[in-house]
């Protein structure tokens, strides 16, 4: 099953390598990994998407917690939560298809972020599934290049995910 795990880590040299190294050394699957500073500059927050059965996911969480700079982890999959991902996609747009590309962007509420003679670059934020669907629709028009952030997520409600609890 797919799991989205949030990890709070000390914002120090080498943390990312430790996390990536853990996944490769133990043969765990890693679909995406997103890292950025959190509101507290001494900490970074990661969102990690992985797959595995209950036993594997349990080990992944324990192994993550065992890394010294990891402050806290949370398996979002077990909670009411939201997830968002962003994609930048450059699509071929010549005479005949120019309008079609814009129509797709409109349907998915994507933004046009760059316009060139033979292409449009679109930005879309949403759940990963929505991004998948968007890219599927654009594919026949000719995708020149594409980059996705991997999802970030947090739980719903007014509770935060901080060091304290």
């Amino acid at each position, binding site marked *: 099953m797919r799991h989205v795990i949030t990890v709070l880590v000390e914002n120090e040299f*080498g943390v990312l*390598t430790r996390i990536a*190294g853990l996944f490769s050394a133990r043969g765990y699957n890693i679909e995406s990994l997103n890292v950025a500073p959190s509101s507290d500059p001494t900490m970074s927050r990661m969102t990690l998407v992985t797959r595995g059965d209950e036993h594997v996911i349990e080990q992944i969480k*324990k192994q993550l917690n*065992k890394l*010294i700079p*990891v*402050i806290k982890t949370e398996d979002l999959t077990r909670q009411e939560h939201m997830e968002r991902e962003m994609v930048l996609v450059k699509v071929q747009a010549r005479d005949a298809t120019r309008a079609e590309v814009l129509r797709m962007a409109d349907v998915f509420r994507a933004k046009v972020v760059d316009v060139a003679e033979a292409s449009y670059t679109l930005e879309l934020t949403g759940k990963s599934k929505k991004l998948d669907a968007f890219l599927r629709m654009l594919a026949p028009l000719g995708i020149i290049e594409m980059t996705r952030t991997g999802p970030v997520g947090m739980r719903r409600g007014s509770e935060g995910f901080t*060091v304290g609890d």
Partner: protein
Amino acid sequence: MKLTGAEIFVECLKREGVEIIFGYPGGAVLPMYDEIFKKNYFRHILVRHEQAALHAANGYARASGKCGVALVTSGPGATNAVTGLADSLADSIPTVCFSGQVPTHLIGNDAFQEADTVGITRSATKHNFLVKRVEDLALTIRQAFHIATTGRPGPVLVDIPKDVATASCEFRYPEQVEMRSYKPVTRGHQGQIRRAVKMMLAAKRPVFYTGGAINGARGSAELLTKLVRRLGFPITNTLMGLGGFPYDDEHFLGMLGMHGTYEANMAVSHCDLLIAIGARFDDRVTGKIEAFAPEAKVIHVDVDPSSISKNVHAHLPIVGDVKVVLGQMLEALDAARGEPNAEALKVWWHQINEWRERDCLHFEQDMDGPIKPQYVIKRLHELTRGEAIIATEVGQHQMWAAQHYGFRQPHRWLTSGGLGTMGYGFPAAIGAQIARPDATVIDIAGDASIQMNIQELSTAMQHKTPVIIAILNNSYMGMVRQWQEMFYESRYSHSYCDSLPDFVQLAEAYGGVGMRVERPGDVDAAIEKALANRDTFTVIDFIVTKEENVYPMVPAGAALNEMVLA
């Protein structure tokens, strides 16, 4: 007061209570070596290879209960240390290794003797640090010792660039270490403890299965012994756990696992409650995992949550330190005021005693024939009253030592269990002898393993450690040969030890005493002579039967109750 990095290094070590460090100098650590020379705060043991420094620190830690400390130079010094770090990681032994590094402005430049030490050792340590500013050094050293010695112990490496060692800053020693991201749990959950006691009192066929943690956590062995005797349950130890319970107590079933006793493996295979304390269900212990303790409910006490339910599902997990949890269990047992199921235990012991009658470790020594390796171990036991500190290399001799030595007390058994590092035993024995100068320390070795760190004879000579090296010389890499005999139709591919040196002359060349023993009748005299020699190391080359096999044996992948007895 302003101090240089190198001065901070020695000041911090002094405050950590470090008395001994094992090391080898080189360009990048010269500032530290200079301070060691000037301040003379602690004793430095010069080894002959950095791998040995780490093994010696490991042996020192096990025998003393303190953190082992090593110091190595950059590049090759650090890469030579890697095996020793990985070994301490696999066996959870507290050590801190300091390595020199090229100056910060040269890092990443392929500089002379540069290695990405933090990168290389990341998966061979519990944690590691690269110190980039002299201002961070004191806190980093404090954290390194804290991490190495608390929770699940393990090796920590601190990489110190040369310019950090020479730069200065205001020195303030951090009295407290508080890490928000690292807070090991020591006390077991009280509700879980009560449930555990309830399960123990209800059990009909219980077994204690205890591991290396009892040898690591000082004071836990006494509590374990108390608990086991109080309940009257049988107990088995892992290879790492030997000495955690007196071998001659009637509750003791011997070691379990691949080369464990028949009674221990049968008891585990038939128990209805398995009480695992500080043991990690290694595959050498479980054999075929689906067939391991199939009828048992499992209680698992471990300080590392990732050990619990990793290989075998724990019905009742307890996260905490073994010593604390054993204390809690004893209290909860008093409070529960129940008694174990005496009727059921009687039947269980009856069954166990039947298994015991197989006498699975039996061997015969023909006093006119060649020496049996097991016989040498028996005599070592007798002549040291089971009280020596025993180190081993890796192979058949290691298993015979585990099966036949018979340990009465904890902290006297130094063996490489997790990584299985040939070359571990001799430097570890030197480390233990440094920790316990008056103790008898014996490295039980094979003719192949001893050659992996033989250069340490020079270290033993220089530092006057009267370690005894008992080589069980079968002219083979015996353990490899045994597998080839059993699983590769006796094709002994490259497992014969050709061109063995004359170990007697070798010992003498290094300045120690060497003896060769070829007849069973001469075994005792040689051991006695070695025990009496407190001035130098002694090498005894016991020429033993060449093709002896270690039994019982559970073939890899088989179930514990499918063991081969002979």
